[in-house]
């Protein structure tokens, strides 16, 4: 493309970064959010021996569009007793962190000359954890803004739950980075090329990370912040129409980004251990294939998220805390120690 050569490196960088951001959010993440809601409804229907949405289009495939339209045209009702500023702020604050996490995830190798990651930070994983930890504000402020007891209880529960499980989650990935020796997520994928997926080397890490991801995204069996039977609907009780839909979208966007993190950390990212697919792509088709592999792995993990939701009953709150603090954190610490000892013994040889 000739016009590209007239641009300075800074302009090219800005152009391609904008393109990548727009493509990743609007062409990949948001449609995936919409269709994972449909997948959730279909799979839950299958598990409970129902039909599920099947009216809008063949097999109900236009259902997400209908749902989205409905959210927009419904009356946006603001109850009288809420704290207005926070009531408006909270849905945005829950959705933005979910989008920001995408920035450091390498979703492919190369497309042309462009590296398929928006920002190749050398502290990638710390950035992710920082942004994820900001996600709690959306829920806490939603609970506070509602100014009534059930949403408030939901908000308080979620802040305690998310802080607790963040610790377990952070500790669970330390062994991964001890093995890789770098916090950069592209390096993590390089380390795993050739089939040395870290899920085989660090199964304990993966398990803790997976369970903590359920707790962080407020999914069943840990959806205590919204548990309908005791809290009416939790932190989003007072919300309706598009504001409610934003919370809903944030939950699914968080599931997708945490699946993407798991794919990157434990399942080799965009690589597959055969057919030369673990080397950075030199052709356009190869690059697209890598993106496809990455998305395919995410879809598989999303399936696990949805499947678990309809299979397990909800935990009690004390069981949740007990599991986080008295089981996972000691196990994660022991895992770090064991990995350190193994690495030390290997180094001593």
């Amino acid at each position, binding site marked *: 493309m000739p016009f590209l050569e007239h641009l300075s490196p800074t302009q090219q960088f800005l152009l391609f970064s904008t393109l990548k951001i727009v493509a990743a959010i609007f062409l990949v993440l948001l449609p995936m959010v919409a269709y994972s809601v449909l997948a959730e409804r279909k799979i839950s229907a299958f598990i409970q021996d129902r039909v599920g949405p099947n009216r809008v289009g063949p097999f109900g495939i236009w259902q997400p569009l209908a749902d989205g339209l409905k959210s927009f045209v419904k009356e946006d009702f603001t109850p009288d007793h809420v704290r207005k500023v*926070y009531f408006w702020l909270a849905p945005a604050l829950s959705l933005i962190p979910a989008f920001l996490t995408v920035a450091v995830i390498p979703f492919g190798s190369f497309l042309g000359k462009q590296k398929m990651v928006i920002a190749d*930070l*050398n*502290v990638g994983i*710390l*950035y992710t*954890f*920082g*942004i*994820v*930890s*900001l996600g*709690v*504000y959306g829920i*806490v*402020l939603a609970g*506070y803004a509602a100014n009534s007891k059930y949403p*408030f209880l939901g*908000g*308080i529960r979620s*802040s*305690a739950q*998310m*802080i607790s499980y*963040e610790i377990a989650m952070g500790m669970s990935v330390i062994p991964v980075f001890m093995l890789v*020796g*770098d*916090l950069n997520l592209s390096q993590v994928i390089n380390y795993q090329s050739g089939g040395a997926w870290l899920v085989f080397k660090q199964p304990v890490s993966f398990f803790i990370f997976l369970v903590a991801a359920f707790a962080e995204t407020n999914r069943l069996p840990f959806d205590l912040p919204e548990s309908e039977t005791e809290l009416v609907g939790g932190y989003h009780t007072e919300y309706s129409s598009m504001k409610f839909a934003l919370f809903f979208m944030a939950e699914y966007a968080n599931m997708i980004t945490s699946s993407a993190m798991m794919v990157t950390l434990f399942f080799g990212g965009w690589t597959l251990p055969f057919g030369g697919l673990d080397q950075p792509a030199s052709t356009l088709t190869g690059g697209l294939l890598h993106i496809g592999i990455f998305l395919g792995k995410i879809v598989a993990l999303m399936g696990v998220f949805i499947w678990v939701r309809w299979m397990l009953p909800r935990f009690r709150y004390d069981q949740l805390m007990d599991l986080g603090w008295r089981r996972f954190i000691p196990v994660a610490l022991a895992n770090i120690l064991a990995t350190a000892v193994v690495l030390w013994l290997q180094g001593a040889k």
Partner: protein
Amino acid sequence: MQDALFYLFAALTLLCGLMVVVNPLSRNPVTSAMFLVLAIVSMAGLFVLLHAFFLAAVQILVYAGAVMVLFLFVVMLLDLKEEARRKIKVFGIATGLVSVGAFAAVMVASIVGTHPGKGLIPQGEGTTPVLGKILFTQYLLPFEILSVLLLVAMVGAILLSKKDLK
């Protein structure tokens, strides 16, 4: 670009810091806490401009993501109604400004004293491994003492929160 970003983040940090203590629109403690979060995040932006990426990430992770959430937690549970009704007092602002001025004077004097840009060689900026190596070799003792200090604080907090000591 860099300069513009520096002034943007510096202004944001100062403005948000000011709004934490003297917010003319709202005396709600939760609003103050949220402005403190903003101040912390803009400070992380300043760290990024200094190429201290690790520090920036940890700043957001620890302070904005964990410490401030717990603050918010406590503020919400205590329900500080009379705090919200309290007006801004002239005496409070005056003493505050005096102490800030004194602190700023000390800071400026010490910064000018080190001849900025000439004296100290930057250490541990950029990559995390470099920072880790410095922390575990050159600054091992202060690092360990700090961790013991945190441990003492933790044990103290648990001890204080226990109702009956056996």
